C-alpha cells in the first residue's frame, strides 16, 4: 500500500481549511484603505461624479478608456451615492450586516469607477474586485459586529477557497506586473530613475537620488523584476515565503515613500500581503488583543499560507 503522491499531498494542503483571521483582516483593511484613497475625491464630490465638473462625453464606441459610459449625477444624488459608499464601506470594515454592506459598497464603488475614468486608479479597480470577493465570501464571521450580534463560539477556520482566492490574486497580480515589466524597459531601461522627476516626486525620492550611486537604480529594477515575475515560486515555497513577504513589504514601503500619491496603493498591497501571507499565529495573536470574539490563538502552528 502506497501513501499519497506529492500531487495529492499538495492538493490536500491547498484545499485544507484556512485561518479565518486572514479573510477577516482583508475585510477590515481593504474597504478602509479604499475609502481613505477616495477621501481626496469625496471632498470634491460635485466635480468628481456630479454635473458641476467636466466629464468625458459618451465616446459612442468601444474604448479601453471608457468601457461603459456612465453619466454624471445631479449634485444631491451624487452626495447621496457617496454617503452610501462611505456608510457601506465602513459597514463592511466593521462587519456590520456584512453581506448587505459588501454588496452596496461593491455597487457604489463600481459606479464611481465607471463614472469617472479620470480619477480611477489601481486601488479603485482592485477595490471593486476585492469588495465583490468579500461580499461573496463568509467574511464577517469573526472580528465583526455580526459576530458579536450572533454570539456563539469563536470560529477560527474557513473553507480554503475564500482565502486562497486572495492569495492567488496577489501572486497573479505580481506575475502580470512582472510580465509587463519584462516586456517593457525594466531589464535594460532606466525606468525608476526616469520616473522620479515629476509631480510624484517626494523628498525621499529626491534625497535618495542625490546620494545613491547610478548602478543602484538598475539593480533595484532587476531585483523587483525577479521578485514579481517569480512571485508564484517565492510565495508557493514555504522556505522562500517569509523572504517574499519581507521583500514585498519593503518594496511597497519604498514605492509609497518615493512616489507620493502611490501611498494608498502601497498600503493596500502591504495589507493584502500581511493578511494573506504573514504567519496566522501572529495575526491571531495581534487581533485577539483588539477584539473580543477574535479567533483564538493557536500555538500548534496550524497556519498555512
Amino acid at each position, binding site marked *: 500500500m502506497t501513501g499519497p503522491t506529492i500531487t495529492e499531498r499538495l492538493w490536500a494542503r491547498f484545499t485544507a481549511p484556512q485561518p479565518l483571521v486572514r479573510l477577516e483582516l482583508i475585510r477590515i483593511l481593504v474597504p478602509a484603505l479604499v475609502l481613505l484613497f477616495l477621501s481626496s475625491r469625496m471632498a470634491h464630490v460635485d466635480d468628481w461624479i456630479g454635473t458641476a465638473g467636466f466629464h468625458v462625453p459618451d465616446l459612442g464606441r468601444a474604448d479601453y478608456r471608457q468601457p461603459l459610459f456612465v453619466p454624471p449625477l445631479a449634485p444631491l444624488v451624487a452626495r447621496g451615492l457617496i454617503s452610501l459608499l462611505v456608510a457601506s464601506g465602513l459597514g463592511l470594515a466593521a462587519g456590520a450586516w456584512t453581506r448587505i454592506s459588501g454588496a452596496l459598497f461593491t455597487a457604489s464603488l463600481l459606479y464611481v469607477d465607471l463614472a469617472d*475614468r479620470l480619477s480611477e486608479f489601481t486601488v479603485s479597480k482592485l477595490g471593486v474586485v476585492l469588495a465583490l470577493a468579500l461580499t461573496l465570501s463568509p467574511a464577517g464571521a469573526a472580528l465583526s459586529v455580526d459576530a458579536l450580534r450572533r454570539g456563539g463560539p469563536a470560529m477560527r477556520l474557513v473553507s480554503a477557497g475564500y482565502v486562497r482566492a486572495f492569495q492567488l490574486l496577489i501572486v497573479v497580480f505580481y506575475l502580470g506586473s512582472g510580465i509587463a515589466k519584462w516586456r517593457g524597459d525594466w531589464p535594460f531601461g532606466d525606468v525608476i530613475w526616469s520616473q522620479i522627476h515629476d509631480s510624484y516626486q517626494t523628498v525621499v525620492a529626491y534625497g535618495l537620488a542625490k546620494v545613491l550611486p547610478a548602478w543602484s537604480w538598475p539593480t533595484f529594477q532587476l531585483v523587483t523584476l525577479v521578485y514579481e515575475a517569480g512571485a508564484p515560486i517565492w510565495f508557493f515555497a514555504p522556505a522562500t515565503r517569509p523572504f517574499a513577504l519581507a521583500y514585498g513589504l519593503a518594496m511597497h514601503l519604498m514605492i509609497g515613500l518615493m512616489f507620493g500619491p502611490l501611498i494608498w496603493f502601497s498600503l493596500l498591497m502591504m495589507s493584502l500581503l500581511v493578511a494573506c501571507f504573514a504567519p496566522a499565529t501572529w495575526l491571531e495573536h495581534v487581533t485577539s488583543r483588539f477584539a473580543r470574539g477574535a479567533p483564538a490563538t493557536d500555538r500548534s502552528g496550524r497556519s498555512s499560507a
Partner: protein
Amino acid sequence: MRGGGKKKDLEPAVVRGFLPRWGEIVAGAVGVLYLASLVTGSFPRSKDPLGSHLPATFVHFAQAAGLFPNAAEAIIDYRLEVWSCRARAFQELDTRVYFPMRPDDKENRFERLGFFYRHDAKVLSTLDEWLAAAHDGPHVPDGVDGPIGGIRLSSLRLPVPPHGEIERWNPRPLTELPASVKKRWYETPPAVRDQRCAGRS
C-alpha cells in the same frame, strides 16, 4: 485525548460560504477567468489573447497589473492656455480651479485628461465648450480676467536629467519655458474664438 469517537468533536468548526454549490463553481470560474485576464491584460492590447473575447468592462478591471512598464522619455506636464477676449492673446489658466481634486500631482483630473485624451478631438472640443461656459460662471481667480474665446492644450516634455542630477519638482509658468519643450495638442479654431468673443471684452 485519544479515542476515535471523540475525534469529530475535536475538529475545529469551519466557516462555510453562503453560496450554493453551483454558485461557488460559477464564482470560482469567473475568478479564474479574472486571474487569467490579469496576466494577459499585461500584454499589449493587440496581443491579449483573452481581452477581445470578454466584455469590455470585465477587461477594464483586469487591466490593473501593468504599472510603469516603460522608462519615461521625458517629464510630462499638461498645461492649458485660454484665449482672452480682452487681451486678444492666449494666457495660461490655473486649471486647478476647474479640476480641484489632487491639485498638485499627476492624479489631478486635468493631467489625466491630457494623458488619456490628448489625441481625441471630440473630448477636447467638449472641454473647449465646457470651459468657455464655466469661465463665464462664478469662479475663484484662475489667472485670466474677462471672457474667453477658446483653449490651447499643450504638454511640456522636459528632459530627464542624467544620473546624479535631480531638481525638486517645481512647475514653472509656460512663459518661462522655451518653445522646444512645448508640444501642442489642441487649439480652438480662430473662427470659433472670434464668434465667442464677438461683442465681449
